[in-house]
């Protein structure tokens, strides 16, 4: 297997991009990624997307985007793993480059959630769950996570305020991110007093609905200096699954797919959680952020609230979590989120994160979830000296 580098990236602000279509949105990210890369051409385009068939009446995203970018007849296809689609696409692109199948691959994700009308967006996002045994009974993406959060609070006797405090931290970080959908600070009361969606989850426990696209260019590490002056190495990358039904899990409070994917990615990169300087983790809901941080090995099970209060997830703590603001504040254009995370961590390792910059970050981690933990993808990026 060849070592793989990310030689450039581009992303749009996460927002409700009323004037832009799915193809135009990805086009903006792709053009930004190609801007400073001195690549002779692309061999493949592998892109993540979840909801285009539901909300934009569009499948065959690979051909659509290759055509829009004027790069036909290259190999192009879409990868789908619900909200984990972006990272799943990057894993596929990594495999293509590492194996020698392709040399220069564009990957990333695009999502156009604002094209959904009425309840279509909620229904489309819900399809990450088991249609016949979860959605049938009136559950949704939010209420399934509310079941997990209520069980967590009951099991570990965690005050509801602790989850609000995580949202506050995410917004504090996101306020410094020019790409964030909700770049403003909030208070604990904002979360506690916001609309109740599915108890105990309120509106400000949830990532917002938005559009976005992020693109990355991958190539063999040994070729990277030819094409770019600033690149990072993908030291480890892995994916794993869990039961599609939340109820079927032996422990509702463990994201086993994250535990397994992280273990593989850490071993592949020969690092431990203690080596990670900066992490972009998947916090669709505040409870998802808590479980993710615990299952990535940054914190003992059930101790999330205690460490949060001790500022363990801020500069000077155990690990800097979501300097981008995470899904909560940067936003969650579902099939693109995993690509945003990787671009953001690459930006950190290259020292280009400006007001979000974590000082002297050498090793970074991303964790992207599909569904309520049924798919997880973890990657470890490394600064190249």
């Amino acid at each position: 297997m060849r070592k793989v580098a990310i030689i450039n990236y581009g992303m749009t602000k996460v927002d409700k991009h009323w004037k832009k279509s799915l193809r135009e949105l990805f086009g903006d990210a792709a053009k930004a990624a190609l801007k400073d890369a001195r690549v002779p051409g692309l061999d493949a385009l592998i892109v993540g997307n979840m909801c285009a068939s539901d909300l934009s009446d569009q499948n065959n995203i690979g051909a659509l985007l290759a055509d829009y970018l004027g790069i036909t007849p290259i190999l192009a296809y879409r990868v789908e793993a619900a909200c984990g689609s972006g990272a799943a696409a990057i894993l596929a692109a990594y495999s293509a480059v590492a194996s020698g199948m392709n040399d220069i691959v564009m990957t990333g994700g695009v999502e156009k959630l604002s094209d959904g009308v009425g309840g279509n967006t909620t229904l489309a996002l819900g399809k990450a769950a088991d249609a016949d045994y979860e959605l049938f009974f009136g559950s949704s993406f939010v209420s399934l996570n509310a079941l997990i959060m209520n069980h967590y609070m009951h099991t570990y006797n965690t005050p509801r305020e602790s989850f609000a405090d995580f949202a506050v931290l995410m917004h504090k970080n996101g306020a410094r991110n020019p790409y964030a959908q909700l770049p403003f600070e909030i208070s604990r009361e904002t979360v506690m007093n916001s609309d109740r969606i599915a108890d105990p989850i309120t509106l400000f426990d949830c990532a917002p609905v938005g559009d976005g696209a992020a693109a990355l260019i991958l190539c063999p590490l040994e070729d990277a200096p030819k094409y770019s002056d600033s690149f990072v190495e993908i030291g480890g990358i892995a994916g794993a699954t869990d039961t599609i039904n939340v109820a079927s899990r032996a422990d509702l409070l463990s994201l086993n797919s994250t535990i397994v994917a992280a273990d593989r990615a850490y071993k592949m990169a020969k690092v431990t959680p203690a080596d990670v300087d900066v992490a972009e983790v998947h916090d669709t809901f505040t409870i998802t952020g808590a479980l993710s941080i615990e299952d990535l090995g940054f914190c003992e099970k059930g101790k999330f609230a205690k460490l949060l209060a001790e500022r363990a997830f801020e500069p000077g703590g155990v690990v800097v979590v979501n300097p981008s603001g995470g899904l909560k504040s940067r936003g969650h254009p579902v099939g693109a989120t995993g690509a945003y995370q990787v671009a953001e961590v690459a930006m950190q390792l290259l020292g280009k994160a400006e007001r979000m910059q974590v000082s002297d970050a050498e090793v970074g981690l991303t964790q992207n979830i599909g569904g309520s933990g049924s798919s997880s993808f973890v990657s470890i990026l490394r600064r190249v000296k």
Partner: protein
Amino acid sequence: MMSVPRYWREIPRRTRFEGTKCKKCGHVIYPPRGRCDRCGSDEFTSYKLPERGKILSFSVVRSPPRGFEKLAPFLLGIVELEDGTRVTSQITDAGPRDISIGMPVEAVFRKISEDGDAGIIQYALKFRPVFR
């Protein structure tokens, strides 16, 4: 809209509460899998799930998905049955203040939703508190 065959084929599982039991290792699986996740066997016998259990977690759903507007706010729960099998369904015949984690519940046959004026009416099991 849900097609009639798609609704009909799940009747044994959703309304008769039939799971499967692995012939080789005895593992009970619901909803059924094609292969046993414990031993890998693909031979099963039909297994009737117990109709009593306790609430493992619940949520008061205030912002319902399409098709469940008339019901909101309603209670969604994960129930751990007497044999340890866990299922997702609604908690019924009770309000948010009447229930708690650990409370005993029993299955009841109820309407889940209807597909507009012309579609099929969908039924399955919900759970209601057992007040002793």
